[in-house]
């Protein structure tokens, strides 16, 4: 493996991990609200949360491109107010990975929260604990396995993301090139040995992440 190849591996693993960390607070909050609250229109939010999972990733990428482009609603604001450009930078990779992997985290965490007996939370409140303390001392510890499993799934999904990434971040060597993008590019260029080396790394990374997530999602405490 060349230095350039290692850079691609590190960049991919690092951005995937960062995206998982970034979506964690939002994903958990959303999962908790979906698990514990009812409101009119909840099913619409549920559908939106799942949408990136079933829509063509390229389509999701196009939406992000339009939103975060300099003339897009959010991209314009970020450029004018914060002098922050997103599209075709590493931030775009982070954005694409976050959006694409969020549904997996939300779904796993939601199931985990729903499995926590609400009576435990209620009784914790009668013992004087406010909502946040109940969440961090009762709900989250009891749902920890499901949440960690969901994080690993989200991480694994981010590792392999292709369609949305190429739309918003392009494939700029040394800047936005991820494992999937590099594999595709090398096959196109006919550099098969290189593609296979990167393929091997992807398989190892993905296998480890999914194997760990299975471990956390399946094995329940007695």
């Amino acid at each position: 493996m060349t230095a350039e190849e290692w850079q691609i591996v590190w960049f991919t693993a690092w951005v995937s991990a960062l995206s998982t960390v970034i979506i964690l607070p939002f994903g958990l909050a959303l999962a908790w609200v979906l698990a514990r609250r009812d409101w009119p229109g909840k099913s619409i939010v549920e559908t939106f949360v799942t949408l990136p999972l079933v829509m063509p990733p390229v389509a999701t990428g196009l939406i992000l491109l339009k939103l975060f482009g300099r003339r897009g609603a959010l991209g314009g604001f970020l450029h004018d107010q914060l002098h922050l450009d997103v599209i075709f930078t590493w931030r775009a990779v982070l954005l694409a990975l976050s959006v694409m992997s969020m549904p997996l985290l939300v779904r796993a965490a939601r199931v985990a929260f729903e499995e926590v007996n609400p009576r435990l939370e209620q009784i914790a409140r009668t013992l004087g604990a406010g909502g946040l303390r109940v969440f961090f001392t009762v709900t989250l510890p009891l749902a920890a396995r499901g949440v960690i499993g969901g994080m690993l799934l989200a991480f694994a999904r981010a590792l392999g993301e292709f369609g949305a990434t190429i739309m918003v971040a392009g494939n700029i060597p040394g800047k936005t090139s991820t494992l999937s993008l590099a594999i595709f590019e090398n096959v196109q260029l006919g550099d098969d040995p290189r593609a296979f080396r990167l393929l091997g790394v992807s398989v190892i990374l993905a296998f480890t992440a999914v194997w760990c997530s299975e471990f956390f999602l399946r094995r329940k405490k007695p």
Partner: protein
Amino acid sequence: MSLLLKNISLPLADFTLEVEVEMHRHVTAIFGPSGAGKTSLLDLIAGLRAARSAFIQLDGNVLTDSAKHFFVAPHQRGIGYVPQDLALFPHLSVRRNLLYGRKSGGANDPAFRFEHVAEVLEIQPLVARGVTELSGGEKQRVALARALLASPRLLLLDEPLASLDAPLKAKIIPYLARVRDEFRIPMLCVTHDRFEALALADEIVVLQDGKVRQTGLVSEVFTRPANAEVARLVAVETLQPGTIMGVNDGLATVSVNRITLTALAPAAGSREVFVCIRGEDVILQRDPTVTSSVRNRLSARVVALCPEGALVRVELDAGFPLFALVTRAACTELALRAGETITALIKAPGIHLVPR
């Protein structure tokens, strides 16, 4: 304690919980069959669910006033709650469970010192264990201790004994009684077991289908149920339709299935009555010739014997179905067997007539 529940209205699956009641005694039992809305009522008091309308006031402090959209959050009510499933935190040790409700600093009521609570409930040897290593009775005591250690001003107990078998029940009742007497903490105890109510409570609220059927002192409600429904609920064992044949000197002569009984005459009402006899008030005797002060002596055939904890429920045929509750020892001494004939004695005040 004074707990005021006014204008409570909460739609449940099969009926609407509608309650209007004041409780003033130290220990009140909320008594009723399962599905009567008892747990929902506790949840409302603890602030764990919102009603369509409710006014709840504890010792002069308003906790819920739906008309003014006023609602004290459950963690600020200071109401301890031991639910039926106990809700011990499975991921925490017994010690961390116990300390969950402790306030930091010196904000805890000195009456609920850790050592004292642990001593009263005998939980010191359990403290280092995990929750899953506890037996049913131990879990019960830990849940009770956890609620007390949060220094509550009112303790809600939901069916504290329902999940325990008879011998364990007998062991836990003294602990509940000790908590009641040691800490002088007002308790509201949901139960469908009249023995539990009798053992623990001063006052009883009979709840059925979401409505309060009767309130009063326990002994009063059990011996003088307001109507046949309450009589059936408080499980007065014998409940038979009868007709008052005559009243003389405050004593009524009642005919039940052509058997004549003497009972205290009801204050007023129709000649058609329900005759209520509690199992404890029926005395069984072998020798029919012994004379005594008892007004009613009936020759009865033993139909069946059914053990109920320390007691045996004896089903008799005295011309009408009659149930007696006797201790196991008495049952053995009398050598009761199905099919035998025996004398059943019932004092006149032991027969309660409810107009029908």
